[in-house]
């Protein structure tokens, strides 16, 4: 039989999702609470919209000078006694990290879409390492052998009953579909891993080039532990996360969590170098309580090329707050199946320009209604429909 085309396969995938009542129920609940939480957060912090406008300008400028900012950040990190690298391609990034890690290691990982993008976990597992995703949603996804269905809530499509079933299988116990019990179970399963791990891994939400400080936004506390307890911390950061100053990074971070529906998250970790102390005779010694080594890998992989496109470059402004997805009528019934490595309009741009998969990009691009509600939500005013129409033009061979 003839192999199904990418479009047919993709169409079947999204239609299966659209017919899955559980996906619909899980998402309609999530959308409702997202809207009311965000509304509440924006009312409590009415300056957010103004700050978002500033962030748009910061991103516009930064995306045009990613190469310069990456070099500057590398210098800053090195002078903080960390190690910094610029990976031209995703293969380069996997090689750099692969060599740093080696084989037979235990790794605890914070959630990272950039890691997902290049298949980092799979790569490290193939090399004979044991990798634990520590974000609860991502842990569920890993154990299900599935892929994330939302940027900030990867397991958004999995209801509690399914999680109980999964965790019962892992622990060999009969666990009830009670959310608190399930959260406690994940804590119990992962607790020791942080302290046994050889390496902790993370991404970053934003990084200041001048100081080399990365910002990690979270609520669970897994990132604090994963980047704090093991002796080595490796961070993989897409170059689009670079901004010039520490002040700029603060603004980007605040706008990110606000539009991700939080008044303020429980934790924001700022990391600029390895752990050190000068408490004995003022002699600087590395690896006090935190990691002795910090490695930061900046990933280009087509980003500087994408930055040159007048319309599609907007995809690089994305703060990954996930707000647009809650406003997308297609996403509301298909979740992350409407996308590739990233979702909806940004996902289509990424598929076409970073992954060079024009067939997949076409399938995703023609799933967009061009209704424009994503743009209304976006803190940095990314014009989803304009990007989609531009992609279609590209697909039609008219660019």
């Amino acid at each position, binding site marked *: 039989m003839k192999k*199904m*085309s990418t*479009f*047919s396969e993709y*169409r*079947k995938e*999204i*239609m299966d999702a*659209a017919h899955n009542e559980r996906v619909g129920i899980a998402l309609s609940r999530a959308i409702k609470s997202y*809207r009311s939480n965000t509304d509440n957060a924006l009312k409590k912090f009415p300056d957010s919209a103004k700050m978002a406008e500033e962030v748009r300008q910061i991103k516009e400028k930064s995306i045009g000078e990613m190469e310069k900012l990456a070099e500057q950040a590398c210098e800053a990190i090195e002078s903080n006694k960390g190690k910094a690298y610029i990976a031209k391609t995703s293969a380069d990034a996997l090689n750099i990290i692969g060599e740093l890690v080696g084989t037979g290691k235990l790794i605890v990982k914070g959630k990272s879409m950039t890691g997902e993008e290049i298949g980092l976990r799979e790569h490290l597992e193939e090399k004979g390492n044991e990798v634990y995703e520590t974000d609860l949603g991502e842990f569920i996804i890993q154990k299900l052998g599935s892929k994330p269905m939302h940027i900030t809530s990867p397991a958004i499509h999995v209801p509690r009953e399914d999680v109980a079933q999964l965790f019962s299988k892992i622990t060999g116990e009969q666990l009830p579909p009670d959310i608190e019990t399930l959260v406690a179970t994940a804590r119990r399963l992962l607790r020791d891993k942080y302290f046994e791990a050889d390496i902790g891994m993370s991404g970053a939400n934003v990084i200041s080039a001048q100081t080399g400080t990365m910002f990690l936004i979270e609520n669970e506390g897994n990132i604090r532990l994963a980047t704090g307890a093991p002796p080595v911390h490796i961070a993989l950061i897409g170059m689009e996360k670079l901004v010039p100053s520490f002040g700029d990074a603060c603004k980007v971070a605040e706008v990110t969590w606000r539009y991700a529906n939080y008044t303020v998250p429980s934790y924001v970790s700022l990391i600029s170098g390895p752990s050190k102390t000068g408490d004995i005779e003022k002699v600087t010694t590395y690896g006090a309580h935190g990691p002795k080594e910090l490695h930061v890998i900046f990933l280009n992989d087509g980003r500087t090329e994408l930055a040159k496109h007048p319309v599609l470059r907007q995809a690089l402004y994305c703060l990954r707050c996930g707000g647009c997805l809650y*406003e997308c*009528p*297609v996403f*509301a*019934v*298909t979740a992350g199946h409407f996308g590739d490595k990233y979702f909806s309009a940004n996902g289509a741009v990424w598929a076409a320009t970073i992954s060079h998969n*024009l*067939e997949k990009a*076409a*399938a995703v691009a*023609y*799933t*967009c*209604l*061009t*209704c*424009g*509600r994503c*743009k*209304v939500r976006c803190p940095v005013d990314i014009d989803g429909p304009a990007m989609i*129409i531009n*992609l*279609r*033009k*590209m*697909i*039609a*061979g*008219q660019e």
Partner: protein
Amino acid sequence: MDKKTKDLMPPGLSYMADNIITKHNILGAARGAGAKWAEGLNLPRQSETVFFAGCGYQFSSDLESLMSLIRKMDKSAIGSDIPMGLAGLQKKIGVDFAGMYRKISARDKDKAGQPLKDAVNVLRGLGIDFGYMADDEPCCGGLLHYIGLQNEFGQNARNTYEIFKNSGVKRIIGIVPSCTYTLRDLLPLYIDGFDLEVKHFLEVVLEGIGSRELRFPRQVKVTYHDPCQLSRYLGLIEEPRQILRSIKGIELVEPEWTSGEWSTCCGGGGGFEAVFPELSEILSVNRTKELLETGADIIVTHCPGCIMQIKNGLKILKRDDVEVLDLAQVVAMAMGV
């Protein structure tokens, strides 16, 4: 279109694009088939101000039948894994689209043109002097832009502009949101010195209505569905609400979260309904549910695509107690024209 384009463009879209390019309407209907709604209205064909009817309302009964057919096929095995254009499908299963248009009853055809007749009567009632180009009316070609055929759109835009200019048109009153946006905002991108004044029907109505007393024939609870192209593209959010609020007998109720610039798309946009007919239907049901939560007796909107989608949503939800009306019909009823 070259082969690569046809390969990557989903089935359905290239068919509609070819229709626009060769037949000057989305459906590939014969020339003149659309202008029938205006027979007997005695609108002058030449005027400095013209009413632009567009494809959507004129062919709405054809579109409804076509969509219901496509949806049936989409749910069956035929549509699920054989990607092919509608033209190919037509050949394979022997559906005669052209014949199907002819079979639509005269009564349905009449109903299809009703919002246009009402709009004309409203404008006349407000004392506005205008004409209608009938079968000389060019196709705005908007769909070509949305599906990525900008070269063809540019060509169509220049032809369209020339047709207007040659018949001495200076002002256009649009009614289909998508056509109006295309004429007002997209055409100028392709034409140097574009000098047509394009307004939407609602803007003209609001200017003309003044302190005229408007009364709906009965006391009703109405909710308003914002078409994407009208709210987020043309920016007409307050205008329809102002009009509805000024009509005695109408109580306007809004859905929570999803009105104005936050309104949810009906599921038919930019050719989406032709590529994903079944998904489009699911989205129409979702949007209809949001609107029904308001407890309204009538859902008012102002776009032929939205009307078709919401009607279908109501049909699936078996809510024949709720009516869908076009805003032009509502205004005509309230003016008694």
